[in-house]
């Protein structure tokens, strides 16, 4: 199939015919995070157990669903069976999964992750299982097991114990809502269940078929998976898998039904802005690159995800490489480019491997090369590796790096859209942007613009990490409050601690204090707070974290990554870091804070590129919201020196 050149009618046939669903299938999340947590061993154990028992199960590797806290993650589904997500798997539980779940129909204790899709009614079916989890445990007092026993006992009283089984869930996707119970297969979910409710659940719901409206959880999932639409569901190593999910429909539509100008117009309608951080309108970047007259134009996918603590781009490249490639091809068509590059961090070998495979598959299938799908459009792409330089995320530095030089930024203008790689007009788009492009061309710009806010359309993927209960990848519509992402999706602070602040935008961003967490996620609102949207890192900090230390960490990162070309960044950053280290060690002066502010101002206004201009942001925003922490450190030193003097006087007097 894949060695043959695909025609538009081949594609139409693939999209039209739904593949026969496997009677039973298993998907193992094999991204870098999953593999690090042991997904390979889980995969092998699943295959072994399946073959031992001689079962017919379609077991495949996929990218990540985003549930990093539960890696390795395994999803099981099939005809006439509910799709169940299992987390925190290992080789032993993988065997259990095949034997107990796939063969015998039981669930596994403490492994099931309840999906965010919740039912409103029982669907007229008998319920066969209950998941229970205490979502607001008090210290050392998790009532999950206790409620499991209570429910079992009550089922026994009603002679239902053989019909309905009760399992402890690993996660319910609900937090601070007391004991939660989810019924399967209907996914009707009850929250804040108390002892007396158990009898009602059994008598009224299980036996009477009535939903208890006072306990029913009706809030939907705030997440909206557009960029991550295929991640964790399709096989990233198979072109066929992407095609069956409707892949390359956007490309076909662009090539066969639209002029390049219409493609750009569609992007304008969608309102998509660059997801790399700065939020430049994608359509405008394409238009500015299309307009100049040149013998050759180039498109680049920026996969140099350098923000420490962010792994959105890696997950998309590893989970759905063809979506990014399709986006790059569409951008090339819109601009009039025949050459494309993926610039990917060398530290992401799996992402590189999967993109390279996607390119090879497309070449073999005729989706890359001359006259793609019988059109006049010819295009080919290749991979170039980064080599560990944060500054290469900056457009002009990235270009220098692909040209084989040091990644030093150049003054702009001229912008790359006029004079880019080898002096040719070049459009550089981020991974997430391109993954959105392919679906926008398929579903239409207006559909995409239906998500988000007026100025920030669509969705954004965030990597929520740090002191948060469930670190994971989250994709939400723009405009929802940061608090919803942190508390409703990721479960709030870890170990019941209090959140102090959330950092967005990595080394170029700033901190957002607890009382500002209701701010909606948009480019403008985050900027107004002194932070930025950035590429999508969201770091949660609790009361035990020192803001001065965090500022020092980020600034240290930028100082190390400064290319050294311009003085404000090279010297300013270094001197400011020395001051922060001095303050952090307790040797600071109150005057130092003034000096720090001066250096920040200088770096912001006079640095050549984005790295230097934004490097002061973590310092400035911690100073803005947590100045007292700096003052405490400075004062402690004053207090100590006052103490020392007092001691010296006493000594002196004694003599």
């Amino acid at each position, binding site marked *: 199939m894949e060695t043959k050149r695909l025609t538009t009618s081949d594609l139409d046939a693939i999209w039209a015919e739904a593949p026969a669903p496997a009677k039973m299938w298993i998907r193992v999340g094999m991204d*870098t*995070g999953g*593999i*690090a*947590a042991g997904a390979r061993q889980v995969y092998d154990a699943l295959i072994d157990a399946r073959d031992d028992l001689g079962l017919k199960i379609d077991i495949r590797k996929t990218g990540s669903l985003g549930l*990093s*806290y539960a*890696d390795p993650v395994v999803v099981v589904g099939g005809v006439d069976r509910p799709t169940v997500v299992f987390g925190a798997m290992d080789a032993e539980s993988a065997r259990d999964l095949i034997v107990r779940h796939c063969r015998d129909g039981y669930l596994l204790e403490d492994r099931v992750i309840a999906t965010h899709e919740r039912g409103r009614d029982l669907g007229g079916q008998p319920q066969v299982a209950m998941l229970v989890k205490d979502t607001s445990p008090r210290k050392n007092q998790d009532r999950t097991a206790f409620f499991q026993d209570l429910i079992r006992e009550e089922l026994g009283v009603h002679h239902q114990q053989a019909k309905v089984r009760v399992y402890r869930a690993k996660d319910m996707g609900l937090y601070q809502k007391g004991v939660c119970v989810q019924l399967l297969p209907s996914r009707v979910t009850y929250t804040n269940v108390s002892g007396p409710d158990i009898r009602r659940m059994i008598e009224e719901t299980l036996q009477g078929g009535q939903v208890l409206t006072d306990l029913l959880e009706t809030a939907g999932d705030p997440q909206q998976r557009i960029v991550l639409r295929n991640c964790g569901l399709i096989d990233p190593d198979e072109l066929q898998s992407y095609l069956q999910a409707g892949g390359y429909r956007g490309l076909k539509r662009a090539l066969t039904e639209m002029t390049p100008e219409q493609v750009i117009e569609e992007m304008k309608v969608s309102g998509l802005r660059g997801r790399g951080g700065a939020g430049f309108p994608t359509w405008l970047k394409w238009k500015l690159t299309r307009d100049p007259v040149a013998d050759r134009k180039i498109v680049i996918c920026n996969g140099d995800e*350098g*923000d*420490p*603590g*962010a*792994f959105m781009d*890696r997950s998309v490249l590893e989970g759905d490489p063809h979506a990014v490639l399709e986006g790059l091809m569409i951008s090339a068509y819109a601009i009039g480019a025949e050459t494309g590059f993926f610039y990917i961090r*060398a*530290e*992401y070998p799996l992402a590189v491997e999967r993109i390279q495979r996607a390119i090879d598959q497309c070449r073999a299938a005729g989706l890359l090369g001359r006259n793609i799908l019988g059109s006049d459009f010819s295009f080919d792409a*290749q991979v*170039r*590796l*980064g*080599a*560990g*330089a*944060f500054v290469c995320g900056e457009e002009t530095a990235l270009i220098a*790096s*692909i*040209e*084989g*030089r*040091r*990644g030093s930024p150049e003054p702009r203008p001229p912008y790359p859209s006029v004079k880019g790689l*080898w002096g040719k007009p070049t459009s550089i788009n981020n991974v997430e942007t391109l993954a959105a492009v392919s679906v926008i061309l398929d579903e239409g710009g207006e559909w995409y613009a239906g998500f988000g806010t007026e100025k920030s359309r669509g969705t954004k993927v965030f*990597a929520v*990490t*740090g*002191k948060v209960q469930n*670190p*994971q990848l989250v994709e939400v519509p723009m405009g929802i409050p940061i608090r919803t992402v942190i508390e409703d999706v990721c479960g709030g602070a870890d170990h019941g601690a209090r959140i102090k602040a959330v*950092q967005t935008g*990595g080394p170029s961003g700033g901190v957002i204090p607890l009382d500002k967490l209701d701010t909606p996620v948009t480019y403008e609102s985050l900027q107004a707070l002194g932070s930025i949207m950035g590429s999508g*890192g969201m*770091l949660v*900090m609790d009361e035990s*974290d020192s803001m001065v230390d*965090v500022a020092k*960490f*980020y600034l240290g990162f930028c100082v190390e990554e400064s*290319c050294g070309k311009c003085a404000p960044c090279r010297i300013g950053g270094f001197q400011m870091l020395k001051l922060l280290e001095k303050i952090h060690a307790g040797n600071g002066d109150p005057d130092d804070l003034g000096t720090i502010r001066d250096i920040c101002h200088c770096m912001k206004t006079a640095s050549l590129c984005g790295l230097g201009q934004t490097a002061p942001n973590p310092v400035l925003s911690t100073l803005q919201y947590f100045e007292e922490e700096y003052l405490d450190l400075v004062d402690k030193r004053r207090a100590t020196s006052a103490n020392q003097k007092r001691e010296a006087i006493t000594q002196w007097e004694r003599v």
Partner: protein
Amino acid sequence: MSMGTELGNLLDWVEGIRRRVRELAKEWEDQEGNLIMILHAIQNEFGYIPRGVASELSKELGISMARIYEVITFYHYFRLTPPGRHTIQVCMGTACYLKGAMDLQNELERQLKATGGRDGEFHLESVRCIGCCGMAPAVVVDGETHGRLCPNDMAGILKEKRGK
């Protein structure tokens, strides 16, 4: 006689490197801006960028040594010295840092009794985010990731690898 054989082996070895460099240069010949990709290939093969190999490459591509040196030293990924038998990478991404990556690093340094962390057998380095933030703090030992660690785990990790 034996001197002659050794010299012969050495010459063979040098010739082998020359041939390999030529092959790599040939592979990337018609690609624009190929220097970094060739350097990646060299590091994959030798574990670092040996000076002799760089100088062969300089002749082969007609690029001055100064330019190659400039590129190697600019990018963190390229090494100028051979790595130890085992490589230990402590992730210094933000999530790992917040969850105590510095403590892991300090403990490893203490155990290896070497600042900068090289004792021939182990090559200790702190690396930028490896993207396993869900299992912070994380350490990569010879390509294998270990997560959710505390300083007490370090001795075991070293013991497991030492002498292998």
